[in-house]
């Protein structure tokens, strides 16, 4: 075999390897792009901690109306904490909160949360407090699952935990509602917040 024949025989193998290398590069780039999460891990930990404090305060209330107000205040506080940490995370990563992944997250997260707000108002007027913990957990979880479709896998898993917990809460005695909220918005947030913070930065 001459040198030229030898080279031509080897060339296709090299191009095949090159094609494989290109395919690997495409896969890596796509995975890296998808691994960004606008969900702030430390924000989750902070939201979880505030939820635990709210659960303790809410448990001391003798009137259901006051119990509801405590949790409503916690929702507002959690939204402020979450938004502040998202802004901090996106700014730190030199990203815009309203660009691509962040925007997709909010567009997917908002509808179930808004529906939750409207239903809460209707149930509040009817005094149907017992249904609220389960509904809040399920709708918040639904928002996290849909928004998590554009984020890292751990986010939709966290959403499913909320939804599962909400489903159990709806079928459980009303007296346990406060502790379901403590476990869901408190413990689940803290655990998944720590996972996100450690694996995906911040």
């Amino acid at each position, binding site marked *: 075999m001459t040198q030229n024949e030898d080279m031509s*025989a080897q060339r296709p193998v090299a191009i*095949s390897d090159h094609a494989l290398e290109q395919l690997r590069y495409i896969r890596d780039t*796509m995975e890296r792009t998808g691994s960004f999460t606008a969900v702030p891990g430390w924000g989750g930990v902070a939201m979880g901690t505030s939820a635990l404090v709210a659960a303790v305060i809410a448990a001391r209330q003798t009137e259901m109306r006051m119990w509801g107000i405590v949790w409503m205040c916690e929702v507002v506080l959690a939204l402020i904490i979450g938004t502040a940490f998202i802004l901090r995370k996106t700014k730190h990563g030199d990203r*815009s909160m309203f660009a*691509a992944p962040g925007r997709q997250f909010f567009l997917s997260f908002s509808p179930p949360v808004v529906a939750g707000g409207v239903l809460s108002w209707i149930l509040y007027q009817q005094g149907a407090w017992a249904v609220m913990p389960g509904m809040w957990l399920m709708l918040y979880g639904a928002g996290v699952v849909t928004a998590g479709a554009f984020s890292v896998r751990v986010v939709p898993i966290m959403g499913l935990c909320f939804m599962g917990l909400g489903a159990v809460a709806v079928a459980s005695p009303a007296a346990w509602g406060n502790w379901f909220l403590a476990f869901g918005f408190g413990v689940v947030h803290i655990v998944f917040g720590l996972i996100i913070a450690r694996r995906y930065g911040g």
Partner: protein
Amino acid sequence: MAKSSATKLAAVKPAPSKLATNETQALDRLIHEKVRLGIISALAASGPLTFVELRALLKTTDGNVSVHARKLEDAGYVTCTKGFEGRVPRSNYELTAEGRMAFEKYLDHLEAIVGVMRAR
């Protein structure tokens, strides 16, 4: 599509060197370059991205992203929308339908090459 291309290529069975040359020529040269391929892959995976996001993802320089994104823009594979967020200028890049088709075609070609070589 990849399977049919692979079958078609395998059926013809040209000399290995000829096949390699043909396939290399068939690859979209515009996408084949690494930075441009990175830009297209990232946009295909996540939807619109800003200039800064692309630079961070591809771990490259401003100049590189700028030059290669411009080439893709000229070819109609991506669109660039310039705007401001507060006082900060932002360039948003998005894959066009033509760009997505070209990317899918490029992937099919790569898979066909790998498929044919594995069948040998």
